[in-house]
């Protein structure tokens, strides 16, 4: 599959940037406005899904190799767990918001570990959702290949 028409390709390569930016915004401001790591992560993933639909798998594979993607997935999860452990190390207990007094209310840098957690979750969700869609599409291709043979 070599992707869709030129129009679609061109537009989606532009829109991609906007979507990614929007996703990052949702993630970063998750502690101030509606949204957060999960929603932002899904938006990030959807930008790549769009690219995949428009340009085909091989293109995306060059941009974001599968191995890197799965590493990002693990990294996000580990990072989130590590925030919890850091709470144990530096604060009073596991998942303690040990940075809660850092920064001022209603600013980007505020509310301690919450934005950090949002970033970790955003990374994790984005990577894993894209991964699963990618794998699903690969799998379908394989099985249809089997049929042709």
């Amino acid at each position, binding site marked *: 599959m070599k992707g869709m028409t030129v129009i679609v390709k061109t537009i989606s390569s532009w829109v991609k940037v906007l979507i990614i930016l929007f996703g990052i915004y949702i993630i970063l401001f998750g*502690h101030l406005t509606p949204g957060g790591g999960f929603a932002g992560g899904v938006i990030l993933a*959807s930008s790549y899904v769009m690219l995949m639909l428009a340009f085909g798998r091989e293109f995306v594979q060059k941009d974001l190799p599968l191995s890197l993607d799965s590493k990002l997935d693990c990294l996000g999860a580990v990072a989130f767990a590590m925030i*919890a452990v850091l709470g144990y190390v530096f604060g009073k207990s596991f*998942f303690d*918001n040990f940075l809660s*007094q850092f920064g001022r209310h209603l600013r980007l840098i*505020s*509310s301690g570990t919450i934005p950090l957690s949002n970033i970790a979750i955003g990374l994790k*969700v984005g990577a894993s959702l894209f991964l699963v869609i990618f794998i*699903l599409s690969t799998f379908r291709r394989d099985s249809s290949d089997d049929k042709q043979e």
Partner: protein
Amino acid sequence: MNIMFYVLLLFILIAAVIAVETKNLLSSVICIGAIGFGVSIMFLFLRAPDIAITQIVVEVLGLIILIRATISRDLTFISGDKEFFGTVVSVVIIFMIFLVGIRVFDTIPEFGQPTFAQAHNPASETYIEDGLEKTGAANIIASIILDFRAYDTLGEATVLFTSIIGATVILRRKSRKALGELE
């Protein structure tokens, strides 16, 4: 607002019935999408924008997957008749559960007003009143899911992680080594 709410509910119900009953897979998938968007609008009515956003983005992504899966299949129609006996049994069972349900839903409390609540309900009140002070997050939802109940969120992230690992494992190409490969 109330009327809109019920209209939406009716819309979701109709879409759900069509999704189950139609024999065209693509229509079914589209109806499921409609349900999802309806639900996200309902969340908005209930003043839960966080959940609405999440619902909508997940719905979009889910719909893309489903439609792709549907249109790339040769078979887009469900064939075969339904078994009469099975239908009768299901209808009877559903009816009886419905009977029980009537009694149960009678007792369901007003929205946000638990019947069994103690005079002073510490958790939700504290979340709303002192959430910002205690966690520094302006978005109460964020303060709940990432601080008060961050452990749950870790669990949910793990659920996602588990399902991804599970999917990659189940969809891998070769599952067993040939006999000779073992040692």
